[in-house]
């Protein structure tokens, strides 16, 4: 297992938090949320692991989106 860099750990930690957020949502809409989270992360798979500026920007964006979607009032997400 290769040692993970700090920034890789940040990305994984964000993904873990997103998945934990999905588990807090009502049962019927969990599939929608999980699909949304996976799509958001999949979209930027092509970013090079050395492109720190872009990765940090996407991390900030992701955290802000997580703060918004984790609010208890958000019950479902439509694509």
């Amino acid at each position: 297992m290769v040692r993970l860099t700090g920034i890789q750990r940040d990305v994984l930690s964000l993904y873990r938090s997103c998945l934990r957020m999905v588990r807090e949502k009502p049962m019927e809409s969990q599939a929608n949320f999980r699909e949304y989270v996976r799509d958001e992360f999949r979209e930027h798979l092509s970013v090079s692991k050395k492109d720190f500026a872009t990765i940090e920007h996407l991390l900030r964006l992701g955290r802000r989106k997580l703060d918004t979607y984790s609010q208890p009032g958000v019950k479902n997400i439509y694509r």
Partner: protein
Amino acid sequence: MLSRSALRAASSASRTAIPISARTLASVATSQVAPSTPESKKPRIKKFQVYRWNPDQPEKKPYMQEYELDLNQTGPMVLDALIRMKNEIDPTLTFRRSCREGICGSCAMNIEGTNTLACLCRIDVDTSKPSKIYPLPHTYVVKDLVPDLTQFYKQYKSIKPYLQRKDPPTPMKENLQSVADRKKLDGLYECILCACCSTSCPSYWWNSSEYLGPAVLMQSYRWIADSRDQFKEERKAALDNEMSLYRCHTIMNCSRTCPKGLNPGLAIAKIKKELAFGS
């Protein structure tokens, strides 16, 4: 009667041809009466270099894009130039603007190295040098010239910028204040929270998470100095720690750059004086 082709030739937007709006027609129609039309003056072409970055393509690094405008057809302020660039050359150029008279604080940006409001900053008519327009320094950029000011607003909220009283309100009676006490607020209440001063302070660049910055500190002094407010000691105690106020080292970039001519450095000095010798 000027033909459409003549109008197009006279148009000064030098990027790929975009149909001329009715606005240009209106300006030519009125000047037909005057002896000298805009076309007879030589066009003064000014170059503008504008910072561009698109969050939809985050891998593409920020770059400077150059635009050329005829100053004879443009209003005197940088905001007029930016609006013309957006309307006639590049509609994707993004910036905040609202009042166009220097009172809302939306168009704060870094023009030729100085943080000002674009609607109050005159275009330098020297056409030999390009004009450089950047977003406010050391801020996260949402897009092009739009800075992310959420931390700035959070810090402003944290100082509780509203009147706080301990006495219950007396019905049918305002909170009275003498003329001398009201004079103390002059130079403090006019702040439009444009963030020009805070983003010009090197101390705020290096410690923006804990240092409040000159704009927020000036507003906290505005409430400390207000005779109607009764929570003065609590406000002073909130600033009495290592980082919130005392990261100010009187660099005084804030007072130099304030587009409204206010003096945040002086307000911060007054807070320090209050905390040191306060009653």
